């Protein structure tokens, strides 16, 4: 599975000139502030927007090539598009919405697949309803199911959670995670919310003003102190596995380089979890503090320091093969004289345990 995208389009006030390729399966986040060109890019992939120049190849099949004047219509592309506003057909039942693409697919998924996806998305009781009788979250799930059932080669999600309030968002995220882990479908996920990206994505493409500012694995990019400031709050994402049961009411999360202690999790040993540690949640010390309430004191080495801000500095740390970032004040940086290569103790007070993820996807 691969996607190659290279686009150039002049909108007048704004020029899109983006180039990236995705070679791994899994979820790729297209991340950036509003107006960075994210939606134009996935519209170009879906075929609803034709850029002036470029080339798009989905799984070895060119769908757009301006040099050869090649332009496949959206219906010939086999992309599943999940719209921000769901775009359910208001005059059809949920069931007919779900089956709209399935009935028109060249290679139809087996009938059993319908019930499996209906169950996966928890839509069993909604099938006979009309879209106007659904909540925002339910609409999103139906939109997702409809796209999935059209047997797409790739799933394009345009901020599927942006129209929802925080509570609904938490309601949908687990479905997206299940989908990521069970559907085995490459997903391109447009978002401007870093927490969603941190939970869902394997790869991340950061867009800024129509250009690709950064691309890489979510673990590398989110722990990078050179990450552009617009990316919001800094914080590394690390992959962990629940260790054996402890007696002290804590759970140990093993990662490459050590173990994180968090409040007890009711999940079986060996479960792979993705956790996010915000840069502000890490304190640094030169000597090991022995009497301290924080449960996590990790010996790490400083990889680099970014101190172009007047008030704070970002410190990138390495432990095993795991990277973290800490944000400290300028004053602290100077007092500790931190520099690349120096050892430091990272004191982590709280850890956001974000999500469960399957280990197979790499």
């Amino acid at each position, binding site marked *: 599975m691969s996607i190659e995208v290279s686009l150039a389009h002049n909108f007048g006030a704004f020029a899109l000139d983006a180039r990236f390729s995705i070679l791994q399966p899994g979820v790729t986040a297209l991340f950036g502030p509003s107006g960075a060109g994210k939606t134009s890019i996935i519209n170009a992939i*879906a*075929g*609803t927007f034709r850029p002036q120049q470029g080339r798009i190849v989905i799984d070895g099949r060119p769908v757009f090539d301006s040099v050869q004047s090649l332009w496949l*219509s*959206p*219906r010939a*592309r086999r*992309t*599943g*598009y999940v*719209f921000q*506003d769901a*775009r359910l*057909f*208001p*005059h059809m039942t949920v069931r007919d919405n779900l089956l*709209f*693409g399935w009935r*028109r*697919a*060249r290679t139809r998924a087996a009938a059993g697949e319908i019930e499996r996806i209906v169950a996966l998305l928890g839509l069993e009781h909604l099938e006979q309803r009309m879209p106007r009788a659904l909540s925002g979250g339910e609409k999103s799930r139906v939109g997702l199911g*409809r*796209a999935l059932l*059209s047997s797409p080669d790739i799933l394009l999600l345009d901020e599927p959670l942006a129209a929802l309030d925080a509570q609904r968002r938490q309601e949908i995220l687990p479905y997206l995670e299940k989908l990521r882990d069970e559907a085995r479908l490459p997903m391109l996920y447009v978002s401007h919310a870093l927490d969603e990206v941190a939970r869902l994505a394997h790869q991340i493409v950061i867009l800024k003003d129509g250009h690709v500012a950064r691309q890489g694995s979510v673990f590398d990019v989110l722990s990078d102190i050179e990450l552009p400031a617009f990316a919001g709050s800094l914080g590394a994402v690390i992959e962990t596995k629940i260790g054996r049961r402890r007696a002290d009411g804590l759970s140990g999360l093993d990662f490459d380089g050590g173990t994180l202690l968090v409040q007890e999790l009711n999940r079986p040993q060996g479960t792979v979890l993705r956790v996010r540690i915000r840069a502000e949640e890490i304190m640094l010390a030169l000597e090991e503090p022995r009497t301290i309430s924080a449960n996590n004191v990790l010996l790490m080495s400083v990889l680099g320091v970014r101190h172009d801000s007047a008030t704070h500095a970002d410190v990138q740390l390495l432990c095993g093969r795991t990277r973290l970032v800490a944000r400290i004040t300028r004053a602290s940086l100077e007092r500790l004289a931190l520099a690349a290569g120096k050892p430091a103790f990272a004191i982590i007070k709280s850890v956001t345990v974000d999500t469960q993820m399957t280990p197979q996807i790499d």
Partner: protein
Amino acid sequence: MPEILTPAESEALLLSLRVSAVAVFAALPFAFAAALFLARTQFFGKTLVDGLIHVPLVLPPVAIGFLLLTIFGTRAGLGAWLLAHFGIRFVFSWTGAALASAIITFPFQVRAIRLALEGADKGLNEAAETLGAAWWDRLVNITLPLAFPGILAGVITAFAASLGEFGAIITFVANIPGQTRTLPLAIYTALQAPGGEAEAARLSVLAILLALIFMTLAEIVSRRARQTT
């Protein structure tokens, strides 16, 4: 028919309804095609085509009647050809009245259908396309059902407008009782006769009632259209 109308009056009423119904439904496919064309395409001179379609709205109906007479008159041109080959004759016949009404009310239909088509969400059309629906599939299964209430409102409005057509009908197909004497022509005829004011008044009240009924219906339909989409 109730006794409040004389046989001649009820004849005029029924003829009016028939002429308008035939006019509106015969014009509908053409109006739909024109509206679809205007709603979906961009080309040089579109404004001119749009203007041409709306011409009957502002042209004196008498002029349209005269124009139809020159085209469909049986002595020459299209009219003679139609009569010779198909036995179709528009002049002095109720079908001619329907043709005149259809042309006069054509812009009403095109305008309403076009608005309804344009109002049918483009995003839904796009969604259908990414799900594999071809253009005719999207037209039949997405655009038409969504535009249907708007189209219905347009048809009713055109029907109501058609009931009032006078100038084009009297010029093109004359004023023949039972054949081309629709309600407005009957009112005119009553006024021409001495002492016909009472009859004209009755027929006018009838015309007002009909207009009210159909305009209210059109309003209800279009309000419902706004609610459901």
